[in-house]
């Protein structure tokens, strides 16, 4: 979630968009999207993805489980 925008000068030329740094799950979701979209393969992220799947699937799988869905 983006917290706020801070302008670094009075003319609003420069600024910072401050947001919560992505979690490992966020990064894996984005990786999975790129993996399906362009066939990206990054060994380090493949390993993490396999670990996550072994622990109970994707983030979507988690929310499904929380909602009592199969």
């Amino acid at each position, binding site marked *: 979630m983006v917290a706020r925008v801070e302008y670094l000068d009075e003319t609003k*030329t420069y600024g910072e*968009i401050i947001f919560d740094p992505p979690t490992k799950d966020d990064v894996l979701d984005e990786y999975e999207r790129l993996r399906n979209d362009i066939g*990206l393969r*990054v060994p380090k992220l493949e390993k993490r993805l396999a670990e996550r799947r072994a622990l109970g699937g994707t983030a979507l799988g988690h929310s499904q489980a929380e909602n009592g869905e199969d």
Partner: protein
Amino acid sequence: MGRFFSRLVAPAALIAATVFLGLTGPGQYTTLRILSATVVALPGAFTLGSTLAERLGLRRQPASRTVQGILRSKVVMVSRDERFRDVDASRISMHVWEVRPWWLRTVLPFAVRRRIAEWLSEDTVTRWGRRLTYLKCLAVYRMDPQPSSGVRFRKGKGLVGTCVEKNKRGKALFVDLESPGFQSAIASEGSWTNASPTITMHLSYREARTLAERYGQAAAWVIQDESGEAIGGLTMSLPTGCPVRIEEKSLNDLVLSLGETADIICSVLTGRKGTASLN
């Protein structure tokens, strides 16, 4: 020709010179002489080895190609976004900048440099950080390709240089090159000289004009590795006259998504060379 010189001729000459001086110096201090010659020759050997590996095809896939594929995917994603329907998508560009020389990270790991930095003043650390490193454009994607602007960024210089120097994960820096503040600053060389460093970001007048002719807005995300070191930056540039503003709340999801992309690019850059790929 410049690349051929800097990546092959210069490192080979450096190695040859140090080997010659190491072997033919005065009879005293032989060990010290050979040791110092080795230290001097090491960067040249790294550069030469990496160039030869690239030329001989020993690397499976340059990271730049993989990163460019990621950028292409993101630009296409933005161009299909309904919020960008009034923007000329062929003029949206994304760049990935890598902090070089890469051998500095190998020879002096970040943890060691951080310890050294604790002993020095902040000014000294900033000054030497800017002097020792530069930013190299590793990959760029724009549907309608355009030649490089020729602006050379360093830490603290330009939007991406400032972003890399600040090294704040979870903060995207943005600039509006069409804002009244920026436009009045680039109105003349004199006004640029008198403008505050927050506006100029250590760019020369000519560099600022070149960038303002190409882009209307830009945003930058730091690429930070697991040790906390800024190893590069990801930038997205929007064309002039773009009705969408990067900092708009409605574009929050894009800002977050590009933050995630920066992390993925980090994994590509820090993984074993050539192992990340596009199928």
